[in-house]
Structures are given as structure tokens and as C-alpha cells.
């Protein structure tokens, strides 16, 4: 272990010097020394690969980046026959091979000819650092900045030396700041330096939220020098204060995000159950159908995963909506005036639908990929980052909600369905096409459940039990908000989401769930008709 | 408030602590007055349904309550029977029962019966059972479990069935009755309960002329022993039973007096009767 560290450091130092010396060297001169190394790499076992990589790094410069990246992503292959490496790429579902340096497409290669060069976690860590080291001199400021930040945790002498050398020439403010931070960290940790310098450095550090800074400061609280300890403590305190504020925002976001999931899951039910009065136990399965639709859509357009969502949303709406219309026409419409019995029938339907997907798609979960634009997170600062998929889903939930409210407010459907649910016969006598209204409304509610399925497929399992896991929550949200009140559903979903997420850190997930349930039970005692009750003489 | 004051307040001599008061005290009608409604106010989202309403009903009186649609008659009954909470005011039954802190069942058990404007009966039970349920009996859980119909009770029900003309339909489900029959059944439910005070909301709606007459007779015969408050828009009917008539308007009393006085009251004519009706619409 130690031995390896030393060699590593040695080589890093070496390669840092090389940046300066050979920054203009050409690919041609390198490849001569590179090729055998690459061949070696292709033949090596995972555990023998690191030294080879160190050597590769030592003899090359920025031009090696594509190679390292390809390797990091697991796309580097080795052509045994030619003793050459090649990158495998995929565009629109087609795999092809190209030279990682020249980007020349090599059409003469088939899958059996090549072997994947596998990497493991250690190698990936190494590769990332190597890339960062190389990128310190990248032309793009943001790449340089990331490189510096990447290296914060690995500040060894040579890196520091490089940074010190690059620092005066750095023109970009942000990069310079990051470098300054790294250097300050270095200064702060050097016990041989003057105390006043160290304390000044610590003060600089106190404005950063980087984890590495905090870890360094924590170590410094055990420093031999009392003044340094005090300064470190003060700085830590300052950082903690800022971090706590962001932690609160973080938690709030978690709550909103959970709320948006609850909202999506229950909004369709707010229509079929809340407005129409159908105790729709098959609601969960409508969500499930939506999720499976997403899966099928992705199957049909494997090369356009990024766009598949845009197809999946309308498709899921149609599939679940049509299924809803079908159920309404075949079953629900015969149960008018018997709302409790809709529970029985729709429960039966939910069993059938579950078994149906189990038969068609197997009982196993299906794989739904996330579009690249929905993956990852939006890093606001080192302690606050919001995951993109959740952010989109939050926005999406609100959008669906608004659209729904508009549909119900601005079209006659909303009015008619309420009239029908309050007095079917009288609605008929007023010329309302009750059959049509019922079918459309149930279809709308189901369709929205389907859309919810698309969103949920991005977060959780797509399997036959998907619906089951949301049905109870959905009913809870609708009832807590007040049956028949869409706004209530919205508020209830977010209330429950936020409450859960603020409880969770102290109580743990299980207890939080229990407490929220108990809270709902007690709350309903105070407000027996939910958050937004239907008022008036007729409401009882 | 000083401690002394609050202690005094606590031990005021004119007050009995609720838990010391006898649970089912007789209704005290010492002043010949059975119902006191004072300064009653109630508004729904800013709309004043009852507006400083005062109303006193004598024991044994038959009082007609009229007033425009929406004047607050039904709402008043809602407040008296505990269905609706008022914003301010007092409602006393006799001198000793504050109705405002009692719930519907307690009020009913005190002897206040009500017929609703829209007939409400237990649709899935027979006419007979509807009446049995309304009998004046101990209505607590255990006594109800062990009670059996006594012959006198059965006779009582039979009597009432005859009175309301549903003897033939005694075993029919109440839900299958026509609108008018339900009205009668509801009156019957009131009768078997033998309440002290009857609040009757539009009893003759949907009844034929003869039935209306019969209802009038029935109600007149009840008065004296019982106190009856009737709300009705059928002026002919009101005239045939009324001794005192109170007119409500926009949540407060507009006029009170005999039928003749009322019929000639300009305000009443304007807001309620209309010229012709005041002149006495002839059949």
C-alpha cells in the first residue's frame, strides 16, 4: 500500500513537470511510446492496470484525455489481433468503433473481435484524478475550476506545487478563487508556517462550503497551536451556520419533492374518487399502466431515450385513459347509486390488471431509463444540490395540477361531472349526457394517473406492484385534503410530504411514517371533513 | 380581574355548577313561557340569516311562523334543535335549559320534536319501525337493547297510524312512500314521540285540501297540552289554525299579532303576502 503511494506520487510529480516541458509535443511523437503501453493495458488484469496507467500518464499530455475518459466510462475496447485499443460508441442505438485519438470511425470491427477493458472502483478513482490533473491546464475555465475542486481532497506536495505555479497566471476569477482555496488549505495545514499566515488562511477558508475544507478545519481543531484551534473552531462555526441554512432548504426540497410525488399519485384519484365518488381501488393500476407504457415506449425507441418521455406522457395518458373509459363503460356505469360497491368491483379489476401485466411483462421489474437531461443534479453549492429528476417532477406535478384545474374550470366537463355526481337523474333531465360525462371524467382521472406513472417510472420500480404501493397514500392525501377539493389535494400532498421529510432525520423513516399517519388520524378528529371541507347545509 | 373577583365569579350564588344540576330536570315553565329566544344572530359567510332575533313562546301555545322564503325560519329551527350553532344570543327551553350547549339528541330528549321541511324518514325501514323508533322511551344504548314493545306502545302506534292514514302501509318500507305520505309519516313520528314542543316546518306542502284541513285539526287539538310552532306558507291553513302569528323577515321579527292584524300589515303585505293573498285568496 504505502509503496504504491510513493510510486504514485513520484509519477505525479513527474507528469506535472512534463506539462510544463512538453505541452506542445505532438501526438505522433507520443504514440510511439504509447502504443506498447496501451497494448499492455489491453492485456492486463484489473489489478495490474494502475501502474500501466501511471506510465501512460507520464508519457502523455492533454491529448490523452479522450482515452482516459473512454476508459473511465467503460467504453474502451481492445482489439486483440491488432494489439490496439479502440473506443466503442453508441449513437441512436448503433454501436460503432472509433479511434479515441483521431475519432476515425473503424468500420471493419465486429463485437467478437474486441474485448472490453474493464475497470474497477480504484481505477475509476485514479482515472478521475488523473483527468483532473491534466485538466488543470485545460483551456476552458470551468473545466479548470472543476479540476481544482476535484483535487481538493488529494492535495499532495506536487499538486500544490503545480497550483502555486499556475496561480499567478490564472486569469479567470473563479478558477483563481478555487486555486486560492486549495492553496489556503495547504497553508492552513502546514504546521511549519507562521501562525498568523495559517490563521489568515483559515479565515479565507471560513467562506467556503467545500467538504474538504470542513474536514481540514476539523483536523485543525486538534492542532498543537491554540490560536489555530480557536480560529478553526470559529471558522467551522461560521461554515456550520451557513450550511444549516442550506440544509433547511435541502430538507424543504425533499419535502416538496415527496409532496409532488404524492400529488401526482393522488390527483387522478381526486377526480375519480373526489369528484365522481367512485372508490377506485384500481387507481394504482392506472398508474402502473402509465409506467409500463413508458417502458414500452422506450422499448420502441431505444435510440431516443432522451425524447421518449415526450412520447410516453401522451401515450400513457391515452393508455390509462382508455382503460379508464373501458372500465367505466363496462363496470362502473352499472353501479350508479352504489358507491360502496365500486370498491368491490374496482378491487377485482385491480387484481386482474396486476395479473395481466404479470402475464404479459413477467413479474419482474422492468427497466426504464432516465433521459440524460433528467439525470444528475443541479449543484448550487457544495452543500446544496437539487436532483434534476425530482426538480422536473415537482414542476411537472404542478403543471399537471394547473392544467387539470383549468380543464375542470373552463370546460363544461367540470360542471357537468359535479352535477352528475350530485344528482344523476336531474342532470339527465337538464340535458347532460351523463354517460359521456362519466366516461370522460373517469378517463381523465385514469389518464392523469397514467401520467403519474410516467413520472414515477423515473423514481421507482416499474413492476406489477407499483400501483399497490401508492394506493393507500393516494386515498390518504385526497381524504386529508377534503374529498372533492382539488386545492385540498394539493395542499395535503405537500403538507404530508414536508412533514414526513422534516420528521425523518430525527425519527427515522419508519417512525416518521407512523407519526404522520397518527397525525392524520388526530387531525381528522378536529376537522372531520379534511383540510378544506365542503361546507353548507347540503354537505352533511 | 382580581383573584377575589374570580373566586366570587366561580361561586356565584345564582349559578349552579353544571355537574351539580340534576341531569333531566323538569322543564321549568314557571312564567308560562316555554321557549325564550333572545338576540339570536347567525351569519353565513357574511350573510345574516338571523339578525337579533327575539321570540318568546308561551307554554301550550300554537304559534304560526311565516315569512318570506329565506327569512330564516328553518334556520331558527336549526338553532333551536341544535343542528346549527349560532354566533350569539340565547335560547332557553323553559327557564332552566340552555339549549345552546346541548346537542341534538339531548334537545330531543328534553322533549323538542321536529318535522323537517323536506320529509326525512328512515327509508329502509318500515313505516311501523319508523314510528317505533320515535316512541318516547329511554333512548340510551343498553335500555334500547333490552326494551320490548309494550302493548300500550303498540296501541299508541296503531292509533297514530290511523291518524296519519298509513295504517294500510304499516309494513311498507318508508322509502317507497310517495312524497305526501312521507310528510304524514313524519308527522306521525312527531306524534308518537309526545314532545313538549313541536317544531313543524311546512306540514301541508303537497297535501290536498282535505288533508290540509285534517292537519289543521290535528295541530289545533295538540295545542294546549303541547306547544306547537308551525311554519307554513299556505295562508288558508295558517288562518285556520292561527292564534298568534309571527312574521320573520331577513332574520328578525317583522311583525307579530293575530292573523287579521298581520294580513293588514303593510310591510307584511309588501314583503310576503302580496296584494291578492292579503285580500284572502279564495278557493
Amino acid at each position, binding site marked *: 500500500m504505502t509503496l504504491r503511494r510513493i510510486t504514485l506520487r513520484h509519477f505525479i510529480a513527474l507528469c506535472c513537470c512534463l506539462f510544463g516541458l512538453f505541452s506542445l509535443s505532438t501526438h505522433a511523437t507520443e504514440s510511439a511510446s504509447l502504443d506498447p503501453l496501451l497494448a499492455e493495458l489491453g492485456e492486463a488484469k484489473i489489478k495490474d492496470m494502475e501502474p500501466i496507467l501511471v506510465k501512460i500518464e507520464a508519457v502523455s499530455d492533454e491529448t490523452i484525455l479522450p482515452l482516459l475518459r473512454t476508459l473511465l466510462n467503460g467504453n474502451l475496447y481492445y482489439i486483440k489481433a491488432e494489439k490496439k485499443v479502440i473506443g466503442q460508441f453508441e449513437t441512436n442505438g448503433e454501436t460503432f468503433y472509433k479511434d479515441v485519438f483521431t475519432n476515425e470511425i473503424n468500420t471493419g470491427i465486429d463485437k467478437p473481435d474486441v474485448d472490453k477493458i474493464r475497470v474497477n472502483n480504484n481505477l475509476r478513482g485514479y482515472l478521475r484524478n488523473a483527468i483532473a490533473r491534466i485538466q488543470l491546464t485545460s483551456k476552458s475555465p470551468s473545466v479548470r475550476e472543476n479540476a481544482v475542486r476535484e483535487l481538493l481532497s488529494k492535495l499532495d506536495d506536487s499538486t500544490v506545487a503545480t497550483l502555486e505555479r499556475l496561480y499567478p497566471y490564472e486569469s479567470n476569477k473563479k478558477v483563481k478563487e478555487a486555486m486560492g482555496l486549495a492553496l489556503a488549505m495547504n497553508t492552513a495545514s502546514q504546521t511549519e508556517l507562521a501562525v498568523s499566515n495559517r490563521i489568515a488562511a483559515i479565515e479565507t477558508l471560513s467562506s467556503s462550503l467545500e467538504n474538504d475544507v470542513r474536514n481540514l478545519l476539523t483536523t485543525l481543531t486538534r492542532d498543537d497551536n491554540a490560536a489555530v484551534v480557536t480560529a478553526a473552531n470559529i471558522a467551522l462555526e461560521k461554515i456550520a451556520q451557513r450550511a444549516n441554512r442550506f440544509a433547511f432548504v435541502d430538507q424543504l426540497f425533499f419535502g416538496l419533492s415527496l409532496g409532488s410525488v404524492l400529488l401526482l399519485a393522488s390527483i387522478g384519484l381526486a377526480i375519480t374518487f373526489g369528484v365522481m365518488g367512485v372508490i377506485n381501488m384500481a387507481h394504482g393500476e392506472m398508474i402502473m399502466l402509465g409506467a409500463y407504457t413508458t417502458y414500452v415506449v422506450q422499448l420502441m425507441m431505444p435510440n431516443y431515450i432522451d425524447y421518449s418521455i415526450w412520447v410516453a406522457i401522451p401515450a400513457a395518458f391515452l393508455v390509462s385513459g382508455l382503460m379508464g373509459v373501458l372500465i367505466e363503460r363496462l363496470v362502473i356505469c352499472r353501479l350508479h347509486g352504489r358507491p360502496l360497491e365500486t370498491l368491490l368491483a374496482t378491487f377485482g379489476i385491480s387484481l386482474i390488471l396486476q395479473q395481466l401485466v404479470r402475464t404479459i411483462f413477467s413479474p419482474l421489474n422492468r427497466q426504464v431509463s432516465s433521459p440524460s437531461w433528467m439525470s444528475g443534479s443541479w449543484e448550487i453549492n457544495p452543500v446544496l444540490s437539487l436532483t434534476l429528476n425530482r426538480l422536473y417532477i415537482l414542476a411537472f406535478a404542478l403543471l399537471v395540477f394547473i392544467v387539470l384545474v383549468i380543464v375542470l374550470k373552463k370546460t*363544461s366537463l367540470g*360542471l*357537468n361531472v*359535479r*352535477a352528475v355526481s*350530485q*344528482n344523476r*337523474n*336531474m*342532470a*339527465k*333531465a*337538464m*340535458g*347532460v*349526457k*351523463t354517460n359521456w360525462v362519466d366516461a370522460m371524467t373517469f378517463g381523465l382521472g385514469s389518464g392523469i394517473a397514467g401520467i403519474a406513472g410516467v413520472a414515477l417510472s423515473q423514481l421507482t420500480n416499474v413492476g406489477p406492484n407499483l400501483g399497490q404501493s401508492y394506493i393507500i397514500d393516494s386515498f390518504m392525501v385526497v381524504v386529508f385534503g377534503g374529498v*372533492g377539493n382539488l386545492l385540498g389535494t394539493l395542499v395535503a400532498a405537500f403538507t404530508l410530504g414536508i412533514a414526513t421529510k422534516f420528521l425523518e432525520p430525527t425519527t427515522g423513516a419508519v417512525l416518521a411514517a407512523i407519526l404522520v399517519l397518527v397525525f392524520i388520524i388526530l387531525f381528522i378528529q378536529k376537522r372531520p371533513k379534511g383540510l378544506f371541507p365542503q*361546507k*353548507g*347545509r*347540503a*354537505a352533511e | 380581574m382580581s383573584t377575589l373577583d374570580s373566586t366570587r365569579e366561580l361561586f356565584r350564588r345564582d349559578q349552579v355548577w353544571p355537574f351539580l344540576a340534576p341531569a333531566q330536570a323538569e322543564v321549568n315553565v314557571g312564567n308560562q313561557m316555554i321557549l325564550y329566544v333572545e338576540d339570536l344572530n347567525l351569519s*353565513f359567510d357574511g*350573510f345574516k340569516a338571523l339578525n337579533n332575533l327575539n321570540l318568546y313562546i308561551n307554554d301550550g301555545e300554537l304559534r304560526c311562523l*311565516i*315569512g*318570506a*322564503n*329565506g327569512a330564516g325560519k*328553518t334556520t331558527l329551527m336549526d338553532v333551536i334543535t341544535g343542528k346549527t350553532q349560532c354566533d350569539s344570543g340565547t335560547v332557553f327551553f323553559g327557564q332552566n335549559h340552555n339549549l345552546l350547549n346541548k346537542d341534538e339528541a339531548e334537545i330531543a330528549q328534553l322533549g323538542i320534536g321536529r318535522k323537517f*321541511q*323536506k320529509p326525512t324518514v328512515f327509508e329502509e325501514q318500515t313505516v311501523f319501525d319508523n314510528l317505533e323508533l320515535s316512541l318516547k322511551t329511554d333512548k340510551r344504548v343498553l335500555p334500547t337493547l333490552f326494551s320490548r314493545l309494550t302493548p300500550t306502545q303498540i296501541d299508541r302506534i296503531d292509533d297514530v297510524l290511523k291518524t296519519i*292514514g298509513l295504517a294500510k302501509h304499516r309494513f311498507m318500507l318508508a322509502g*317507497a*312512500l*310517495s*312524497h*305526501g*305520505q312521507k310528510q304524514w309519516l313524519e308527522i306521525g313520528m312527531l306524534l308518537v314521540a309526545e314532545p313538549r314542543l313541536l317544531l313543524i316546518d*311546512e306540514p301541508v*306542502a*303537497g*297535501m*290536498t*285540501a*282535505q*288533508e290540509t284541513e*285534517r292537519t289543521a285539526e290535528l295541530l289545533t287539538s295538540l295545542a294546549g297540552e303541547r306547544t306547537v310552532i308551525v311554519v307554513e*306558507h*299556505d*295562508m*288558508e291553513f295558517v288562518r285556520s289554525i292561527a292564534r298568534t302569528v309571527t312574521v320573520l323577515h331577513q332574520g328578525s321579527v317583522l311583525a307579530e299579532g293575530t292573523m287579521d292584524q298581520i294580513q293588514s300589515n303593510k310591510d307584511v303585505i309588501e314583503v*310576503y*303576502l*302580496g296584494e*291578492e*293573498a292579503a285580500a284572502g*285568496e279564495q*278557493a
Partner: protein
Amino acid sequence: MISINKVDQLYGGTQILWGLDLEIVPGSITCIMGRNGVGKTTLLKAIMGLLPIKSGEITMEGETLNKQSAEKRAYSGIGYVPQGRDIFPMLTVEENLRIGLPVRSKRTKDSPKDIPEKIFELFPVLKDMLHRRGGDLSGGQQQQLAIGRALVLEPKVLILDEPNEGIQPNIVKQIGDVILKLNAEEGLTVILVEQKLGFARRVGKEFRLMEKGRIVAADKMENLNDSLIKQYLAV
């Protein structure tokens, strides 16, 4: 206008209407009378299509209605004011009235965005209560709303089931005037079930007496005499 031929009607096992015949002439005001429970409401519901009839035929302007759903009949021009009002309780007064607008626009060929002003002229109280829930209205207000709601449809035939139940005298009078006015000015055909003789006499032009699910007497209103009343209306 509407003719009813040999209509039988059952509730479960009990027959309510027995081979009932009834002819409603266009532009008439026909008053159907009878004791409680003889089947008046049942008959009106059958005309409106809210109850399936067992046998017989109901036609309107020569076309059979038997197969038509209630909503179709609303489009064909039948307006219905049910006994017990049947207001949509959780809809506001305005919404209660708006429900009929699509039918109205189809029937009048204009496409009104708004509730016709004449409804509010007839029942001013509805204007004040426009944003209150129907179910919160007082009984009489609801009755007015029910009539107003039927008039929004601009019907050819208006079916009224005891429309004066619970309505204050001056408005009863007013409703009578409205019926007469619509009948006179727009030729509205009216089928009216009414117990109160005074009103029936004032408004009705024809009367039909019912007993045990059959029409037992029919004539002009002038000819409704005491013996008939004694025979069919007294208890």
C-alpha cells in the same frame, strides 16, 4: 303535443300506473290532480324518461319517446321541475342555472354565454344568491331556482311537479303569472301537478284527475266541480 298510450309502470313488483292514457294538447296548461300516492310523480318521471315504462307508448309531436333517453328529451324541449326541487346542492346557483345552457343554445340556435336575464326578472332573489351553493338556499328559494333552471332550457313543454310547495304567497302568485305569461306569449305547453285547488283553478286550463294509476276524469278546468273533488281528492 304529448300523448300517452296505455302506459304501465312498476316499482319492483308493485304496479303504479295501469294502462294510463293522457293527451296533452299543444299550448295547453294541463293540471293533474289526485290524492297522495296515486302516481302523479311517477307519471311525470315517465314522461321525462327518468323511469323506464313497462309497456305502452309516449309520443311527442308524433315521435315516440320510448327509446329516447332523458337527456335527449331535454334537447327535444321538455323542461322538468321535480317534486322536492332536486337542486344540485353543492353547485352554486349560477352553476345550477348554467347546466342547461348547452341545451338552450342548441334549441334556440343562438349560443348564449350567459344565463338569460329573464330568469332573474322572474326570480330576482336568484340574482342575489348567484354565488351561494344551491343546497344552502331556503326551501322556497330552491323551488324558484328549480323553475328557473328548467326555463333556461327554453322548453316547449314544462313539467311542474307541485311547484308551489314551500313558496311564499306573493311568489306563488308570481309563479302563476309566469306560467300564464309564458303560455300566452310563447305558447309554452304546461303539465302541472298541483294539490292546491286555488292555484290549480287560477292557472290550469284543463284538469285530469288520477286515481290508482289511472286517469279517471278529464275536462276543462271550469268543469271541476265539488262532486269530482269529493270523489277523487277528498280523503
